[in-house]
């Protein structure tokens, strides 16, 4: 198998809409609206996008949002701090589940 992810495939995103155009149109409208400047600035939104892209480990989103960050004038320091936040939340989310394990131990132990 060749490379599973090809960066050119991002340009083919629209093809996904062929088989359910109404749903895809709704998604695109919603996606575009959510990234418009609102109470949060465009810059804050692309940093959130970058952090989420790393948390869900989507190569397309990482490419796109890294570029978006640079086009907002952000640099590697901003980018790395944002990824640390995503990593910390992921790490914390794993660690907090230790409480569940502890609860299970309590529940099934004498």
């Amino acid at each position, binding site marked *: 198998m060749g490379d599973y992810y090809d960066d050119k495939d991002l340009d083919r995103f629209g093809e996904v809409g062929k088989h359910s155009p109404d749903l895809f149109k709704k998604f695109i409208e919603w996606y575009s609206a959510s990234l418009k400047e609102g109470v949060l600035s465009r810059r804050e939104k692309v940093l959130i996008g970058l952090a989420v892209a790393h948390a869900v480990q989507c190569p397309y989103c990482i490419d796109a949002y890294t570029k978006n960050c*640079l*086009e*907002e004038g952000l640099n590697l320091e901003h980018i790395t701090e944002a990824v640390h936040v995503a990593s910390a939340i992921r790490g914390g989310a794993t660690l907090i589940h230790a409480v569940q394990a502890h609860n299970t131990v309590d529940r099934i132990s004498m």
Partner: protein
Amino acid sequence: MEFAEALGKHGCPPLRASKVETLQVNIGYKCNMSCKHCHVQAGPSREEIMQPDTMKSVISALAGSGIKVLDITGGAPELNPHLKFLIEEARALGCHVMVRSNLTVYAETGMEDMPVFYRDHEIELVASLPYYRSDAVDRVRGEGVFEKSISALRVLNNLGFGIDHGGLKLDLVHNPQGMFFPPCQARMEEEYRRELDKRYGVSFSSLFTLTNMPLGRFRNFLVERNQLDRYMERLRNSFNPAAVEGVMCRSLINVGWDGTLYDCDFNQMLGLSLCGDIPKTIDEFDAALLSSREIAVSEHCFGCTAGQGSSCQGAAA
């Protein structure tokens, strides 16, 4: 889609000059640096240098036409030994003179007096500083360039450049460090001002954000990365009719080191001649004919009209 076709599709007329208020003169391709984004492909080995006779023709053109702004570019203009002559003559005519400077050249032997010369002749300096952090700048311009640039900015601030709105002008130029577009000019200016003051205690007048043009070394970079088509497609898709009005070719004429006239410095690098049957050298300069000339366009023009636009003075829209 071709650029001329894009204009038509968006209801814009063919591109024509509206006036000639700036004479932009490229006095040579020699430079002490070889920046990765340079559309001129300037460097230490370039030999193309404007000679004094051509400079005299530039001065005659200024005197005869009444054009009041001389914009001197290169290469590093300071490496042309006749730069001071050109500036003195233009200032004697009462012209406002801008020099596009790379900042690091003042550290070269024999160049130490240039900042004082610029102050004494009230020059507006337009200096390249692609970002406010050393890693980003050195990556594009070479190791140690950022530190030299900051030293030069301190010298210029001490001489009165860029320290208040009424004083000598020192503008900085930001350009992306790769195949992406520049950020919002107003917001980036604010950020440069805050960060350069906080980190290095230096100040400047205005920030110009420029789009990287798909020419010269930046084009080579795109070709090497197999990204030229993608970058061009993005430029085309980002065409902004509102940026067309402010593109510099509409109010500027560009002069090559050998005296040939062009619509802009980018056309000069492509060897793209003026359109139509009009004089094409500085010796035959005719401001009236040039003021309404049709502008020669090609695919690189999408670089000046993408998004917020990009002119020699930064964002155009």
